[in-house]
């Protein structure tokens, strides 16, 4: 036991003294959470909007008022000509212009068909299209309201789209995915590299010539990474809860249980990789190709599993992160209980034992 602790302790020294690696391990989840949460989000706020209304009437002022009051828009006022609007847009002051047809209300009432044009500044295409979607929703809402109070049917030509809060939606999607990715990278790559480094630097030769058994040695090596992974898990959860405001709808205990099982699984995979390669660079390549890439592509982190071709869906069943991400989404976001995630938990536990078995079979007692 003393040997085991001494070994884990030594491994901590390696990590702590390698400042760059430590920075990467602890900084990575923070950067990724903030990157996916803010920089790559769909959140669009303070859309600078103006209205061009050649013939104001009850309908147009009603719609303009709603846009003015909407928290996502900053209402700049009315413009009095198309030229004024275009110039303002060119200067970048204006992002969205709502241009009503002449005699809007009349057209709506008599042929029952009024048109409104939404002009967006597409220098930021994402922001522009979101702005159009918001405005469309407001107009549609207004139209439905008018129909609701018993006016004769009419239609306003705009597209109708469903609207959620895009920021919240993208965070919901990404937080479980980032947890899956970060833990996979730290546990698998770091663990396999740290064992293979001992082979490459020759220290494995001295360790093998000592009475320390191989089993305790590899397990002792995983302790610091397990510890760091749990710190990372806590950082990710705190960041998503307080900064991204993603709630934990289900049981926190269940969420932690699922995460710990996943950490054990990825550590086992790191150990498996380490028994198969002899060079650090190969450990990185094998881990990256077999662990990181599938997490990005096949786990449902970015591309939903349901919309994949059948073959890829089948392939994704062997990707540990797929089960983890699915379970975390169920517990964290949908607020489901253990009943709904037992399958994922079982699959991950099975995978862990399978990989540990391979590792124990492959661990060498000698140099070759």
């Amino acid at each position: 036991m003393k040997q085991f602790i001494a070994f884990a302790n030594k491994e901590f020294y390696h990590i702590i003294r390698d400042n760059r690696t430590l920075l990467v391990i602890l900084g990575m989840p923070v950067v990724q959470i903030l990157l996916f949460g803010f920089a790559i989000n769909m959140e669009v706020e303070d859309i600078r909007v103006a209205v061009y209304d050649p013939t104001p009437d009850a309908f147009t002022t009603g719609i303009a008022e709603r846009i003015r009051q909407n928290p996502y828009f900053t209402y700049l006022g009315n413009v009095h000509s198309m030229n004024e609007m275009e110039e303002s847009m060119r200067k970048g002051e204006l992002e969205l212009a709502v241009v009503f047809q002449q005699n809007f209300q009349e057209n709506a009432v008599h042929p029952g068909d009024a048109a409104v044009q939404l002009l967006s500044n597409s220098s930021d295409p994402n922001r522009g299209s979101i702005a159009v979607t918001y405005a469309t929703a407001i107009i549609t809402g207004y139209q439905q309201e008018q129909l609701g109070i018993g006016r004769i049917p009419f239609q306003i030509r705009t597209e109708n789209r469903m609207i959620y809060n895009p920021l919240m939606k993208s965070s919901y999607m990404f937080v479980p995915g980032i947890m899956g990715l970060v833990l996979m990278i730290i546990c698998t790559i770091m663990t396999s590299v740290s064992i293979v480094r001992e082979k490459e630097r020759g220290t494995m030769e001295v360790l093998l010539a000592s009475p320390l058994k191989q089993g305790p040695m590899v397990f002792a090596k995983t302790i610091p990474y397990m510890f760091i992974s749990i710190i990372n898990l806590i950082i990710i959860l705190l960041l998503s809860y307080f900064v991204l405001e993603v709630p934990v709808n289900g049981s926190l205990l269940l969420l932690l249980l699922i995460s710990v099982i996943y950490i054990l699984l990825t550590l086992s995979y790191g150990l498996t990789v380490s028994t198969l390669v002899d060079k650090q660079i190969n450990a990185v390549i094998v881990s990256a190709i077999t662990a990181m890439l599938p997490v990005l592509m096949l786990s449902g982190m970015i591309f939903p599993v349901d919309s994949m071709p059948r073959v890829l869906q089948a392939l994704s069943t062997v990707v540990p992160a797929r089960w983890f991400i699915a379970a975390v989404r169920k517990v964290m976001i949908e607020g489901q209980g253990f009943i709904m995630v037992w399958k994922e938990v079982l699959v991950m536990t099975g995978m862990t034992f399978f990989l540990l078995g391979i590792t124990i079979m492959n661990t060498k007692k000698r140099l070759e």
Partner: protein
Amino acid sequence: MIEVNKLCKSYGKQGKINALNGISFTVDEGEIFGVIGPVGAGKSSLFRIMASLLLPDSGTAIMNGHDAAKDYRKVRQIIGYMPERFSLYQDLSVEENLTFFATLFNTSIEENYHLIKDIYQQIEPFKKRRAGALSGGMKQKLALSCALIHKPEILILDEPTTGVDPVSRKEFWDMLGRLKEQGIIILVSTAYMDEASRCDRIALMREGEFIATDTPRGIIENYREILWSVEGTRMSALLTALRGYPEVKTSFAFGDKHHITVDESFQPDALRHFLADKGFHDVRVELAEPTVEDCFMAM
């Protein structure tokens, strides 16, 4: 006591490279046994088998009664092994390395401090320094301390003095002498022939075989050639010229001189004239005392 019996080991797909070709020898308690040979002779393979790190193709290595192949756990408790390459943790300090290895062998620095005192005292002032920042000589002292900290019965040192400065090399051998007095069996390999005289017995190794096993004195006494040394300027051209002299059997560079073995009819004056004709003046030709290196070259 170490008993090695007909060890064979080959590498490569069809066993094409023979690293060891039926090696047998014994080493007694309190003996320094040196394995001397050039790079690629198979010294490291032999030592790794004895340290239970490699399995031999055939043959046995019995280390104080324990088979290195079958009884490897026991063997690993009684040996101290120092590989050819510096194999400590460069990012750990001197003290942390030593503590780590002590714990690995279920002991502590305090318990066996007397054993490493002579060696460790020299690096103790730097005990907070990272091992990677030590000089070559200090690294070797630390590595030896780590290999000794658990009071091994057998010490296996694979080329411990390669890349170490001459002063540290001398100190290192002095330390081995003191360890021997404590009853530790010391097995050491080296490519430096001049270190052979520091061993109690030596084996000359070439291409996976022991070509001679004896005391250094015994090896030298068995030398049957007539040996002369030749010293002068333009040494490389001189070597070529010597090889053209009919009575010279072999000639090779030996430090800042050349050593030649000659026929019985050899007359040094005749050689001096021969060399003078070729433009080599101030050449000193003297009878030389054979060394282990000369013996090795003659085999």
